[in-house]
């Protein structure tokens, strides 16, 4: 099986080779967008992502893994649907949390019902600065590592680290309000993440 780099480089001279990239990653891009907004927007963004990627194939950086590049394009395209995404976060319900939510809530010692937790998580994600939310969701849902998120968002890895730390802290507090106090203590000890670069 050819690598992403080979496929994309080959597509510079042989455009048809780009079909392999679509076949490999269309479902992944769709899923990422569907989770952030909805399936309908995901249909459009999936399509547009690969058109944009094809247009920009000459500027692909030559990585072995095309996922950061593609998810970065998709993330940019999602911005056009910011209002729908905000609505989707607002509509986050208990059923969205998945099967293990109750255990997780128990572990977090929040002992609040799943509906309230879902609302708080949705609100937290909605209120996150867009850049922080992008970094967090590329990391959690795009399965990218720090370097991958950096490529996707075209920012330094250090910035990824600070954005992720900040976003995770806010999410932690949303899940377990008691964590806020711990965070404050941590901050006082000077263990808080470095500021955004």
């Amino acid at each position: 099986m050819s690598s992403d780099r080979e496929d994309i480089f080959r597509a510079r001279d042989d455009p048809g080779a780009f079909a392999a990239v679509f076949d490999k990653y269309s479902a992944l891009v769709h899923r990422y967008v569907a989770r952030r907004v909805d399936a309908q927007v995901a249909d459009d963004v999936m399509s547009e992502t690969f058109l944009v990627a094809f247009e920009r194939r000459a500027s692909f950086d030559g990585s072995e893994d095309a996922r950061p590049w593609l998810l970065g394009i998709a993330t940019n395209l999602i911005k056009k649907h910011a209002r729908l995404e905000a609505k989707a976060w607002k509509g986050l319900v208990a059923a969205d949390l998945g099967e293990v939510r109750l255990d997780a809530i128990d572990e977090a010692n929040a002992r609040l019902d799943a509906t309230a937790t879902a609302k708080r998580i949705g609100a937290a994600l909605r209120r996150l600065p867009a850049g922080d939310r992008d970094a967090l969701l590329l990391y959690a849902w795009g399965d990218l590592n720090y370097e991958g998120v950096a490529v996707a968002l075209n920012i330094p890895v250090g910035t990824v680290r600070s954005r992720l730390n900040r976003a995770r802290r806010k999410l932690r507090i949303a899940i377990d309000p008691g964590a806020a106090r711990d965070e404050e203590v941590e901050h006082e000890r000077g263990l808080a993440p470095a500021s955004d670069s």
Partner: protein
Amino acid sequence: MNEVSLLRQIRSDAPEPEREAVDQARAALFERIHADAIPGARSVPAKRHRRARWAGLGVLGAGALTVALVATNLLGVGDWRGGADPAAANALNQAALASIDTSDPALLPGQYLLVESNSVYGNTTQVDDGEYVSYLTLNRDKLYVPADQSDEWIWERGARVPYQSFNAEGEALAQREYAAAGQTGETLRAPNAEFYGNSVIPDFEALPKDPQQLLDYIYKTTEGQGISADWMALLWITEALRTGVTPADVRANLYLAVAGIPGVEITEQTANLDGQTGIAIGRYESKDDSRQDIIIDPDTGTLIGERRIDYSGDWGYPANTVRSFTAIKTSVVDSAPGGGTQNGHLDGEGCTDLGSGAFQC
């Protein structure tokens, strides 16, 4: 469980994209890729949820090419009425791309492109009691296309022989008519394929290079003909393709034009035609209760052939009969048979060429 683990559970049951959405997106991408290969073609991303709005314009489907055609329509060019089913549009886009990629075989001086075609046609007779009796006949032809097409082409036309009948009466009729015709086949030879006084090959160079303009041209050319405009457009394209000598770029554009015809769909993923297999793409015509397919090798974009399936059970054919087909094979050969004249057996019978394809015998 930390917050990231919990986050990973959220909406983790998001469904896979629907097949239709993937097909449309893929088709849009292929359209864009195709535009890269053929200057002048256009593409815009697939927009599924806008279909409802397009429906107001009388849209029947939304493949990639058809999406591209929307843009054209909104600009006021052409009379866009929809297009092929998305999966068919996708397959046609791929076939178009494959045609470009595969390109035409290069012929050295003295070599020929050999187009072997097996054509089956229906023959119907009304017998004494008013019933119709039908049978099928087969023609095996070999067309030798010279490297320089202004040189002599050679066309070996096989005798028309009985191929299939559907009852004893039909079989007897087939044998009787075959014996009466006394056909032996013929060989023709003419520069520029001008057999019987006229070129049998369309002027492909004169066709519009843009798939949308090509389809517009076909609709205009065939206006008022056939059972319906869409049926006739597909038939026109089928006739052009089945010559077996369409250049790769023209073939690609013809495939893309098919994608713009409403009602076109994939009719069989793996269709067998005279021993060759490919994807069948066609259109059902309710006015005739029949379907016209073209069958394409999806790997090379080569036309394997075409067929017409009759569902009606009328005219002496059982329902669901392949009422006609043409299967095509092309290869490169180093020589062509000798002999033959421009007008074949008409010359042998001492007929006078009156010009424009007319003869007096």
